């Protein structure tokens, strides 16, 4: 897939298979990597299909089972309002899954990779401009920038959404939480692109000097063809590793935001809000299980992405081992 194999390579036992598919077969021989992929599959499908799996509704209050530790009826116990924590964790995971997927796809992959490609390939003024903007963004302590963005622009965007509801046929944007999703994703995107753009730029600067790119230019290939056919595929390995590790980071940031009360607003549950409630010292004293379920869910997601990124780094860049 990455580099067209020369006929010479065919005799060496990897006939017609690209770098990525060979890396994949090395990856699934690693126990840790397989465990991570399975964990992510379980946790993510738990979140995505929360509506079908969850045994209760996330706002259902049952006053007969207030503050009960984990049991067979309530796998993760119940909170002070008699709500099922397992259900709430599943819905919380759903928020995290949506937000981090949007943040990574738009911020990290689309914007980051595109700007990195443009910056690395065009050089000079454009390169300077993009990298300088990136430098401005990265000279904020990133979590502070995100908090400021959400805290200040959040209400503006919610107001705008309300205006849209009043003046168009669209309805329920604020009530269903779409506005919150937009706010948080914007904030995640605002810092998510910089690292990726720098990485891709560095790769492109190196790859564009190689002979096969020179040859492509010599035979008159168009710029998009050179970019997407010759440059991007060769920069794929580090992009995959960075995106994977970045996912863990994004999950963390999303949880920080909702922990501060800046993310998805109640009554929709989110892992951060649940951790906030469970981390209170008086709650810890009497109902420590409230921290357990959301804590484990968050930890499993971040850990799996990090370990998977590490394993991918091993199989994709064998030289750095």
């Amino acid at each position: 897939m990455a580099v067209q194999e020369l006929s010479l390579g065919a005799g060496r036992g990897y006939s017609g298979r690209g770098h990525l598919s060979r890396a994949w077969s090395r990856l699934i021989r690693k126990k840790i990597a397989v465990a991570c992929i399975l964990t992510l599959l379980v946790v993510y499908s738990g979140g995505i299909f929360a509506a079908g799996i969850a045994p209760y509704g996330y706002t259902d209050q049952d006053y007969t089972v207030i503050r009960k530790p984990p049991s067979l009826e309530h796998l993760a116990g119940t909170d002070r309002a008699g709500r099922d924590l397992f259900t709430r964790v599943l819905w919380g995971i759903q928020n995290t899954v949506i937000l981090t997927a949007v943040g990574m796809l738009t911020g990290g992959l689309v914007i980051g990779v595109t700007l990195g490609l443009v910056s690395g390939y065009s050089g000079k003024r454009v390169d300077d401009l993009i990298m300088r903007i990136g430098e401005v963004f990265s000279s904020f302590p990133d979590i502070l920038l995100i908090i400021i963005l959400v805290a200040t622009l959040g209400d503006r965007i919610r107001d705008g959404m309300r205006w849209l509801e009043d003046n168009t046929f669209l309805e329920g944007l604020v009530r269903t939480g779409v506005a919150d999703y937009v706010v948080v994703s914007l904030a995640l995107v605002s810092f998510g692109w910089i690292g990726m753009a720098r990485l891709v730029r560095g790769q492109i600067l190196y790859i564009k000097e190689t002979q096969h790119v020179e040859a492509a230019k010599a035979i008159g290939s168009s710029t998009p063809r050179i970019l997407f056919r010759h440059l991007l595929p060769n920069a794929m390995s580090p992009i995959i590793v960075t995106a994977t590790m970045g996912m863990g980071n994004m999950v963390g940031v999303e949880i920080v935001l909702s922990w501060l009360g800046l993310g998805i607003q109640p009554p929709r549950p989110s892992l951060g809000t649940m951790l906030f409630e469970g981390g209170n010292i008086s709650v810890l004293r009497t109902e420590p299980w409230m921290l357990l379920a959301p804590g484990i869910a968050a930890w499993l997601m971040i850990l799996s992405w990090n370990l998977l990124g590490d394993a991918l780094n091993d199989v994709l860049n064998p030289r750095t081992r």
Partner: protein
Amino acid sequence: MWNYIVRRLLWLPVLLFAVSLITFGLGRFAPGDPVRVMLGNRYDPERAAIISKELGLDRHFFVQYGDYMWGFVRGDFGESLRYRGQPVRDLILPKMWVSARLALAAMTISIALGLPLGFFIAHRQGRWQDPAAVALSLVLMSIPIMVSVPALLWLLCLKLHWVPCSGWGGLIDPRIVVPAITMGVPGIAGLMRLMRASTLDVMNQDFIRTAHAKGLGAVRIDTRHVFRNAIIPIITIMAFALAGLIGGAFITETIMGIPGIGRFAVESIFNRDYPSIMAITLVGALAFVLANLLADLTYAFVDPRIRYQ
């Protein structure tokens, strides 16, 4: 070399200008009137207008910005909107000192565990200790700080009664244990891996083989040759490790009730205390940029092979 330093220093004000303009703009164009927050229940439009005029909030955006920056350059960060009559500078300086000491404690934990571990597993490359240490450090690093702080508190404070549950008493005080561990442990993974890579890099070089060949003892080679050279690239990373601590400080200080700058930043954002937010962001950005510059320059001085154009 000097050319490079001058260029970096000239770029510094431009960077700070952009950062300050963005922060100031976000603060001013955001809804949520600070005067309204300030007055709370005692709000009435007439008084609001008077206070607004008094604070200069009714002037043009760029006039306010220019006014603020002129003050900032002279060391006057304005007056807090939340704590009336108190200059922001007097509010944030003691809090920064608290956070700096906490960061120092956390950093000490990261370095004291990360560097020796990285050095050690580089010598065990290919054996079980190597991947085990990397995996363990990732497991610890992946615990979100809002989980690790309450979990440690539950264990050390509620169950074992070793430390008080919240508060701050300086560097030599049992209350620093939980925040220092929770902020320091995530840094171990990164430092350890860098140290491992850097040590391996040095160990494979010719002069180490020469040292072995001329009959130097293993300990002497490790201390005099390998460690000294392996530590050089780590210096550049320290600046970034410090930046990572800032993120942890927001949460840890808020949960633990530590009167540091992280907690104050979170409070200021919720109180829409713009002068405080501005000052924290600008000072933070300034420190961050300077730390990076310093790291790059130190790197160049300790490793003469590096030349900046």
